[in-house]
């Protein structure tokens, strides 16, 4: 009997520890989106306090209507749209800047559909592959044009604002 009691007490304590660690885990979230802005109010149009780096661990203070009130490691407090956070750290990886098109940290610059690529062409190894395969030049030119498209974060935000998407939803 005594052995059973010890077993149950141990199990109960273990469950309590696990429950504590789980609830504690929910108090910590990670910035999982590029250009995640910490806002003074629960609104995309409010003042931007800071732009948080991808992978920043933040403490959750409260949650209201799709917005988290958080504290950053440097002690700044504010609101951030829920989609910018995740419950696990995101993949952070080094991408050589010469592999980006347009300005640094931009994604796509879509107006540039008809413009020639100004930053780089295909990788040297892809060009070698195309030579080995006898790939017609037209396919390489098309791919270069596709990769030349870039869009700035500002364009992306304007697009989301126009569609009232995410943090721009009423």
């Amino acid at each position, binding site marked *: 009997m005594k052995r059973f009691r010890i077993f149950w007490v141990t199990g109960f304590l273990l469950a309590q520890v696990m429950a504590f660690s789980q609830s504690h885990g929910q108090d910590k979230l990670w910035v*999982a*989106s*590029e*250009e995640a802005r910490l806002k003074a109010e629960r609104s995309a149009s409010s003042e931007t306090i800071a732009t948080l780096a*991808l992978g920043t661990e933040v403490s959750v203070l409260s949650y209201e209507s*799709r917005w988290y009130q958080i504290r950053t490691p440097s002690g700044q407090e504010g609101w951030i749209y*829920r*989609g*910018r956070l*995740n419950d696990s750290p*995101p*993949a*952070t*990886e*080094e*991408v*050589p800047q010469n*592999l*980006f*098109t347009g300005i640094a940290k931009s*994604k*796509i610059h*879509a*107006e540039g*559909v*008809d413009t020639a690529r100004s930053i780089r062409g*295909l*990788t*040297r*190894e*892809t060009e*070698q*592959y*195309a030579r*080995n*395969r006898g*790939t017609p030049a037209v*396919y*390489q030119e*098309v*791919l270069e*044009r*596709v*990769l030349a*498209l*870039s*869009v700035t974060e500002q*364009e*992306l935000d304007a*697009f*989301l604002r126009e*569609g*009232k*998407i*995410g*943090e*721009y*939803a009423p």
Partner: protein
Amino acid sequence: MKWKGLTAACLFCLLLAPGLCLGALEGETGARDDEGSPRKGTLTSPAGQTPLLAGLLEKLMDKGSKERKIFEGVTSIISSAAEMDYETELTIGESLALEGFRRYGMPVNDPALQRYVNLVGCAVARNSLRPAIPYHFVVVDNPLINAFSCPGGIIFICSGLVRALRTEAQLACILAHEVAHVGHKHALKSIQRAQFFQGVGKITAATMEGEKGRQFEQMIGNLQTVLFDRGLDKNMEFEADLTGMQTAYRTGYGPNGMIEVLQGLILLQARSRQKGSWFSTHPPPKQRLMKCMSQASRYPDWKSMAQLPGRFRSYKARLQ
């Protein structure tokens, strides 16, 4: 780092120059001169070493030499067996994309439409598993119901699939599904045991020549078979569906878009061309629908998320 270099040097010697391993190790560990001081910045062979070894070591010191490039490839396999560097991934993706245009045709000649699809795609990619890499989206002029992603973030969608959609949320879910494949590195996982990677961890100019170059072509050929004809493992597709729904939802789009797409595919399946389409490369839409429906409870406020049928319709009309 030193040990990694030593191991790589050893492996290199074992592969290419049996019997010379000791000399290379001595060079790498810092051969000492007659007075016992380390020889800085040199891999000069110690006394008694063969001229062949000395020549080899000299070539290794030359950054432009073929031997040096092969050595770098061997070195990197040790550090990148688990993680492929982005440039290598992009070369695979670009090579596959060239074949994608050959197989599925040219981009739709409509800058406004391409811009729109890129904006939707980038919006979801910004909240994806790998938000730090650049993504590129292209609508190709092809009536098939199909979309696929190349490693590195180059994503194709056929105009036939765009025509079959009704809302921007549906488009966002499709693109988020493809972005999820890139995030999970599904295509790369399907070729990680390719013969090309035996002894090579990083693609360099030297690895694109001769036998290795042929193996690379074969690997891209196999990847085409997987992505264009046979399809990825069905569990990868289920995973991309669920991750895609979550990514679209985090962005602010209704994750119901994915469920609606799959419901539409069930209706379209009987009268659509199968070969080279989502129907032949993906699990049956009914199975996918059941998996997605099982996750619907995670998105209780989906009805209030963005759907945007009007904006989508205005761009879709450009395809008519």
